[in-house]
């Protein structure tokens, strides 16, 4: 079985491009399934099921969906095997632009949205920079100039990746996307396989339930901002 991680900020068009490329993959006789990760709720499972695609959903609740993903990915892989899938695609929305579900040796896809503005590629962390394939959606509603500038910034943000435009509504570009997915390496097991980059250390007091504001309540991994005006005032 082949595993593929698809990541991208909320509403960029992940489900749309996955659906469009699944249509192509299923047409060539492959069995495709989805593991969908989100925080509070999702209706993506219905969209997949409507098209006859088996799906499991993981709701992370108070955890970061990407952390939750890594803790459960082996079980998802086992589920996929029980379903007799050829391809298992995980869909997750990084909430902080910093977490990334991408795993060594597993095809890593990042979906970005051309509507988000030309400087967005710079701001996204390992989720984009360490992906193998970057899919740009919503190119249909921005100008040709912005498409070119956006593509340029994607290339600077991740010069090693392949990148392509895919329209989540019309499916233009889905064929190329499907071809890349089909060529993903096989993932027989994940025990001991590593993430491409560590997730942020989320162990500040507020991570573990603190609600009171103020320095006396801040124990553990606390990081403080630097203020230029204070720094110069303190300098001798």
């Amino acid at each position: 079985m082949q595993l593929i991680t698809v990541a991208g900020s909320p509403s960029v068009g992940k489900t749309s491009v996955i659906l469009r490329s699944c249509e192509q993959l299923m047409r060539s006789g492959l069995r495709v399934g989805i593991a969908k990760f989100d925080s509070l709720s999702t209706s993506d499972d219905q969209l997949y099921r409507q098209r006859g695609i088996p799906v499991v959903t993981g709701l992370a609740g108070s955890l970061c969906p990407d952390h939750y993903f890594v803790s459960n990915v082996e079980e998802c892989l086992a589920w996929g095997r029980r379903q007799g899938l050829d391809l298992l695609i995980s869909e997750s929305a990084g909430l902080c632009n910093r977490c990334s579900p991408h795993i060594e040796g597993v095809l890593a896809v990042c979906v970005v949205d051309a509507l988000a503005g030309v400087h967005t590629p710079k701001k996204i962390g390992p989720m984009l920079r360490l992906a193998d394939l970057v899919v740009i959606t919503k190119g249909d509603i921005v100008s040709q100039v912005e498409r070119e500038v956006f593509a340029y910034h994607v290339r600077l943000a991740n010069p090693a990746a392949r990148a392509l435009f895919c329209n989540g509504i019309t499916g233009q570009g889905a064929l190329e996307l499907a071809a890349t997915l089909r060529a993903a390496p096989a993932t027989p097991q994940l025990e001991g396989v590593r993430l491409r980059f560590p997730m942020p250390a989320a162990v500040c007091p507020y991570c573990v339930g603190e609600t009171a504001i103020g320095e006396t309540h801040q124990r553990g991994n606390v990081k403080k901002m630097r203020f230029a005006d204070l720094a110069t005032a303190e300098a001798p």
Partner: protein
Amino acid sequence: MSRFATTPIQQLLHSYPCVEEFIAAIGLATPSDGRPLQEWLTRLSDEELLDAGMERGQILNHVERLIAEVEAMADGAAEKVTHITLLGGHDKSGRPEALELTLRAGEVVCVVGPTGSGKSRLLADIECLAQGDTPTGRRVLINGEVPSDERRYGLDRKLVAQLSQNMNFVVDLSVREFITMHAHCRQVGDAETTAEQVIAYANRLTGEQFSPEVSVTQLSGGQTRALMIADAALLSASPVVLIDEIENAGVDRKRALELLVGGEKVVIISTHDPLLALRGDRRIVIRNGGIAAVLETSAAERYNLAQLEAVDAAVMTIRDQLRRGLRIEEAIRWPT
């Protein structure tokens, strides 16, 4: 061993501004001494690396690929597409198209056919450089050869610039800033001057002049169209321009086509407008998902085009009179 590991970092930053941008983008302080790249990386603390979101090897790798990409972009600009060849597939009922169609730079080809007949599919086949792997089974060659994977998937080497009808600007920049931004990405030497040229051309294409200072979001439909056409002709990397209809309003279509063709591009226009369709050198007729015919514009059609243009000019004059508050009572003289 990496090509740049031992290069003094100051030298790298100086030769490749993109490296400095990258270091800033991952939130690391710009190094200010002459240590080699590898040594600078070694001295970064684990916390700095965690915040940056990349490991040492990944950063080194990234810098290397980045420089290679930027160099490739500069090379790519020189690579010329003289012609593309379309090898026929089949229509919706599986009937073979049996055709080999060569489109040359500097040529205007129109695509005509009823809505839903497969015009968009044809444009999509060209755009993705189909290799028998799309529903039509068509194949596309560049300069007579099967395109490399790099061509197919390299974003900046995209073959096709597509000017669609329903598009928006997301950025809020002045026209000058906007076009200059594009020129920077295209690595043109003097971005500001090139931008001025594009804007001047756009103003020649539209009846309603606009200033370089105006925000792109305030442009009218015609002005936007004119700006995008001038940009595609003079600044876009893509040797093929696909245009979905050029409306009559606000754009001088004759000049627009001259400008695009002068830029040594293959221009493909999907249109139902006789003034546009007959101005092309050839037109591709689509029926039932397949190419049913390729018609060369004949001498008789060119004659009729001249007549149609005269009618069009007469209508335009009347529109102008209306706009100026005049009465339209004089007998209209149609061309004979």
